[in-house]
């Protein structure tokens, strides 16, 4: 049973990034090495480029389970883009013990 829409089967190895909660996506980022983040980023980024048109046709009302997971996975890409594109490390630099929790987020 595929986790993601058929057209995105190449991303199946990264299905563990399809997490519904923002804080869980953030925690997975912090628990990953830069190599792991880069590998996921490279794979997901190229697919997002190709998926833009598809995503514009996906309505959020009645979204399929496969599309829902795809959207969660791309939301993880958004989270991971900061360490990969900006920080060069999983954490925000100089953020010490500070935390910034997502307490309300729109469900997908």
């Amino acid at each position, binding site marked *: 049973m595929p986790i993601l829409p058929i057209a995105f089967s190449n991303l199946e190895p990264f299905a563990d990034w399809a997490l519904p909660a923002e804080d869980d996506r953030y925690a997975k980022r912090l628990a990953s090495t830069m190599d792991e983040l880069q590998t996921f980023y490279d794979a997901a980024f190229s697919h997002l480029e190709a998926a833009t048109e598809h995503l514009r046709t996906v309505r959020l009302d009645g979204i399929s389970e496969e599309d829902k997971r795809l959207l969660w996975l*791309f939301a993880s890409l958004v989270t991971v883009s900061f360490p990969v594109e900006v920080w060069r490390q999983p954490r925000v630099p*100089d953020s010490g013990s500070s935390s*910034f929790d997502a307490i309300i987020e729109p469900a997908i």
Partner: protein
Amino acid sequence: MPHFTKPDEGSWTEHFKLGTGTVSYDDSISPEFYELERAAIFRKTWLNVGRVEQLAKNGSYFTRELDSAGTSVVIVRDMKGEVRAFHNVCRHRGNKLVWNDYPREETSGTCRQFTCKYHGWRYGLEGDLTFVQQESEFFDLDKSDFGLAPVRVELWEGFIFVNLDANAQPLRDYLGRLAAGIEGYPFHKMTQVHKYRAEVGSNWKLFIDAFMEFYHAPVLHAKQATAEESRKLQGYGYEALYYDIDGPHSMVSSWGGMAPPKDINMVKPIERLLRSGLFGVWDAPDIGVDELPLGLNPARSPAWGEDSFLFFPNFMLLIWKPNWYLTYHYWPTSYNTHIFEGTLYFVPPTNAFERLQQELAAVTFREYGLQDCNTLEATQSMLETRVVDSFPLCDQEIALRHLHATARAYVAEHQGRPAGTPVRITAAS
């Protein structure tokens, strides 16, 4: 030479007659001053506790823990649709009336009446005591004498405010000219909410300081732009388009240019792909407004990007050119700690791509916020050493100067002293 026009006096600070001397942060490092602020400010002014969308139907309620004002309140839409607020305390023996699992955590829900967990006393949503367990055991108990203690609550543009001072002026008068200038903005269309919360190791005013000036942005947040763009921004520095002050409130109007950026190479790859970033989603949704209220972009600048309003004491409202808004709340928990809440409001997305665009704007806000939070803890710890006790503020920091002066003036008035005289508190030894 300034990039943008300043008032005839040569600076915003002189224009608003705030004085140009160095500033003390005594007001941010003292438990005694904080106790005075609780009495003089947080128990006297209008505090924004939420939005009407949180009370979607009759019977919807939520609680707010107002440590700084020394109470917990429950805000409810009663069965006639009216918004009411009460101290969250049972009239029988003082138990907290509405809570779940953890008495000090906030909660929300829908109900037809409030029932105390302790002895089962029940209250209607208009605050009236409707049921007393074993009522005949009491002595001449008249239920009409034991309704919930009301808290003043008033609405402005869908924002719910409470005030613990029965003699306070009406909300709209208190909010004044700056609020009047943005009435009519379609806040009610922006109902897609992302909310963040952080426990911050600094005085509440210090975080407002960080968000009421953008002088820090090209430096502290340098890495969030591409290297070349970051160098350019630091060379350029920061100047606001316009500042305004009305009573205890202030605003800063800022240029934009990043949603969308003039040059696509200024921004990071994910922003190019999703057409979104800190300034919001580049493709602004239709909000059915031909012309913005006159209080927005007061300089009428074509470069306008965002306006930040500080409604004293602790409510900030940021309205962005691409049709979304952001609120900040700073809830003191002690003289050197507070809870920060940042809430983003978007027009609900119609498809999965728009949802991702909004996700990027929200997550970018989170990354910046984390940088800001920790810097504040570093500031607080060194202010508390009192090694240095006077600090120069520049013209782009006018809103900070005004905020601290306002807090001191409220405390002075509370103590019955003329504004501007030194506060009598004992310095930590």
